[in-house]
């Protein structure tokens, strides 16, 4: 990159490939080579850019010139005209001003961003979130103005329905249908709620979205307010997100000053206010009915549905709840059209999805990809592969409610149905890459510890069932597993899935059941062979000092039970009976002379 002057982004989405983008790529490379520009120009393949009808798409940066319907023959012309002569190839230029993909213009970081498609995060990392002017300059609040000028509430709902957008909080319920239900529920008052109670450990999509572009959420909510006949919006956000709260407050204040919230928005008849309510540290409050109880000032415990919040929600009134990411899609859908939106993604899952990629992957961070992108693309192309040179073992999607998928499922597409079909879920978008150094029983235990701790305690299967499951998992990792334990886990797990009151309990067993399904051997190793191949479960390990030992004595000094003996500069040994398997010697040894197995 150092000497690069131009980056050519070539859309590598399915539609463009179909229309011959790969041959365009060859032709571009050929032309670049011909002019000896290999050092100055970099070709980058991107994920679907959402301009399928005009594909193949070639974008030249800097300048963000979009060329459409590029053929093999056009390639040389682009190189010669644009790159060498500095003139646009006018007949190919596509004049499309979509809200997304601006980051190409700003970031040079195409390895990471190239395969992504940023719709919900379109402004994140681009604008100053505390300056409403930045948002306004990028067509901010134009969607709201458009709705107020040109569309009836029904038109708005129809547009959202056309887009095929589904709830990004995990459930995947069609957003337009939800709006429709709420709009048609009897009642004089209605509420619009933004669920920003993001609680998955390791997921921070919503926080980033609010911190990076708070006005988008407000605009989306106001549009919904207009569509369903509500004048009151509430953002329910975790108290643990002080900066996001501050930026939201500022955004609400600025929007109100600019008559983009409040009474008679932009001179119209429509009035809409937004209030912030804080959570207080309860994961279960992400569940709609629990969230409602929390806003009402009560313990955030779910209640049986029906009645659904769209009919009987906050303070007993029809209530529309969508999560942050869902809201962020709304202005785009209004401005670029539901039809366009629905062209992105798969048959049943439209648009993009944001994932918080973490764990043993090189590029940890937030990625937004079109639905239908494979897990492999995310882990290797965007995530840059496994950190530290270990071997890929599993990918955990959907946070503590999700499942662990082994390598053979890496070509699974991310969409609601495909992930569910292989035993995981989309969830809110947590994605943890696990390598061979992690023990799957321990991973399952980690997630279950979380859900068990976050169980509200209302229903028996979740309160008592997850506790017993955790006990069984704990004893397996301690080497005290018994024959029949796996079956017990399966029995309790399926019972809790089918019988729990809310989504938390219904999905809590997923990490356990999916690891049993995909990594049963590891469980059996723990129980029957008393072995933890990943070397994680301390009680199952044996520490041994091998020939590499130089006799420095460091291990001896840290051993809390004096289990290590040996004379200076001589091979030391560990008394296995005295060893409590704390691992301190292993961590201390600088010569890799201690093994654990």
């Amino acid at each position, binding site marked *: 990159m150092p000497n690069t002057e131009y980056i050519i982004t070539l859309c590598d989405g399915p539609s463009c490939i179909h229309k011959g983008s790969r041959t365009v790529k060859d032709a571009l490379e050929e032309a670049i080579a011909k002019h000896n520009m290999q050092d100055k120009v970099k070709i980058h393949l991107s994920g679907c850019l959402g301009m399928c009808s005009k594909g193949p798409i070639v974008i030249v940066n800097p300048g963000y010139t979009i060329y459409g319907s590029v053929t093999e023959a056009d390639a040389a012309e682009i190189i010669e005209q644009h790159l060498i002569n500095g003139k646009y190839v006018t007949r190919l230029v596509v004049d499309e001003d979509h809200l997304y993909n601006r980051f190409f213009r700003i970031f040079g970081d195409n390895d990471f961003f190239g395969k992504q498609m940023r719709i919900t995060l379109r402004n994140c990392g681009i604008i100053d979130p505390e300056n409403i002017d930045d948002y306004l300059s990028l067509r901010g609040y134009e969607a709201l103005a458009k709705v107020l000028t040109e569309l009836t509430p029904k038109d708005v709902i129809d547009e959202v329905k056309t887009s095929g957008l589904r709830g990004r909080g995990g459930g995947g319920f069609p957003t337009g249908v939800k709006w429709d239900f709420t709009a048609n529920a009897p009642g004089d008052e209605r509420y619009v709620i933004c669920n920003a109670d993001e*609680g*998955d*450990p*390791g*997921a*921070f999509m919503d*926080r980033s979205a609010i911190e990076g572009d708070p006005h988008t959420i407000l605009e989306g909510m106001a549009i919904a307010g207009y569509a369903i006949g509500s004048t009151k919006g509430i953002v329910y956000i975790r*108290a*643990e*997100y002080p900066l996001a709260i501050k930026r939201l407050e500022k955004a609400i204040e600025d929007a109100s000053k600019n008559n983009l919230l409040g009474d008679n928005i932009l001179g119209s008849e429509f009035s809409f206010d937004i209030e912030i*309510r*804080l*959570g*207080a*540290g*309860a*994961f279960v409050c992400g569940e709609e009915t629990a969230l409602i109880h*929390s*806003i*009402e*000032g*009560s*313990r*955030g*415990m779910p209640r049986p549905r029906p009645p659904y919040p769209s009919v009987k929600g906050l*303070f007993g009134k029809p209530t529309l709840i969508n999560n942050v990411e869902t809201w962020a899609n709304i202005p785009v859908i209004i401005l670029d059209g539901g039809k366009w939106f629905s062209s992105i993604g798969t048959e049943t899952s439209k648009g993009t999805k944001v994932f*918080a990629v*973490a*764990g*043993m992957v090189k590029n*940890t*961070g937030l990625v937004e990809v079109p639905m239908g992108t494979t897990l492999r693309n995310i882990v290797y192309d965007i995530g840059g592969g496994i950190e530290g040179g270990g071997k890929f073992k599993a990918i*955990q999607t959907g*946070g503590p409610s999700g499942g662990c998928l082994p390598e053979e499922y890496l070509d699974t597409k991310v969409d609601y149905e495909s992930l569910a079909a292989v035993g995981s879920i989309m969830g809110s978008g*947590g994605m*943890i890459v*696990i390598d061979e150094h*992690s023990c799957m029983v321990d991973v399952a235990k*980690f997630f279950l510890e979380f859900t068990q701790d976050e169980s*509200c305690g209302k229903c028996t299967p979740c309160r008592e069932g997850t506790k017993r499951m955790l006990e069984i998992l704990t004893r397996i990792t301690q080497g005290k597993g018994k024959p029949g334990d796996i079956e017990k886990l399966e029995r309790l797990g399926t019972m809790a899935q089918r019988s729990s009151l809310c989504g938390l309990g219904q999905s809590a067993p997923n990490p356990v059941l999916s690891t049993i399904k995909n990594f049963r051997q590891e469980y059996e190793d723990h129980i029957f062979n008393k072995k933890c191949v990943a070397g994680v479960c301390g009680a199952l390990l044996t520490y041994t000092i091998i020939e590499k030992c130089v006799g420095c004595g460091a291990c001896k000094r840290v051993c809390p039970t004096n289990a290590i003996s040996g004379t200076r500069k001589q091979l030391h040994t560990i008394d296995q009976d005295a060893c409590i398997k704390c691992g301190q010697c292993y961590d201390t040894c600088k010569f890799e002379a201690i093994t654990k197995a």
Partner: protein
Amino acid sequence: MIEMKDQKIDELKEYIAATQSNDNPESYLIAVLHKVQGLFGYLPREVMDVVAKAMNIPTAHIWGVATFYHYFNLKPVGKHIVSVCMGTACYVRGAGKVLEALKKNIGVEIGETSEDKLFTLQEARCLGACGIAPVIMIDDKIYGELTGKTATELIKKYRKAAKG
């Protein structure tokens, strides 16, 4: 001391009064409890009584809410709050060891306050700093890429500062 407390109570009452003109005033309970914790560092029982009276909410209900949400402290906290992030990213990168080391060094379990009232040890879900995992937060400041050793050194620094 007492005067300061009265001042805080007055501020709290003002805050509550402002919420009571809204629709569904009782729904502001959690916001009010946040305010109490902001003023007092935890939720003192007698202050919850004040809230109950001012908001006309039974104390049992307030207690149910206060104990449900992990964000609320029911006991006085130490001078510094040490939150160990146990989010997935941190866990995968060794937060467990950091936590163990801190427990040992401070001499408390999670949720407890050290005898010298200097530190309260807490577990956090995700501090949003996954990139520099594992992290801990001491009061408002985040420290990343820690090991058990570097974490204890941090604590020692704070201890020294408190004495100095």
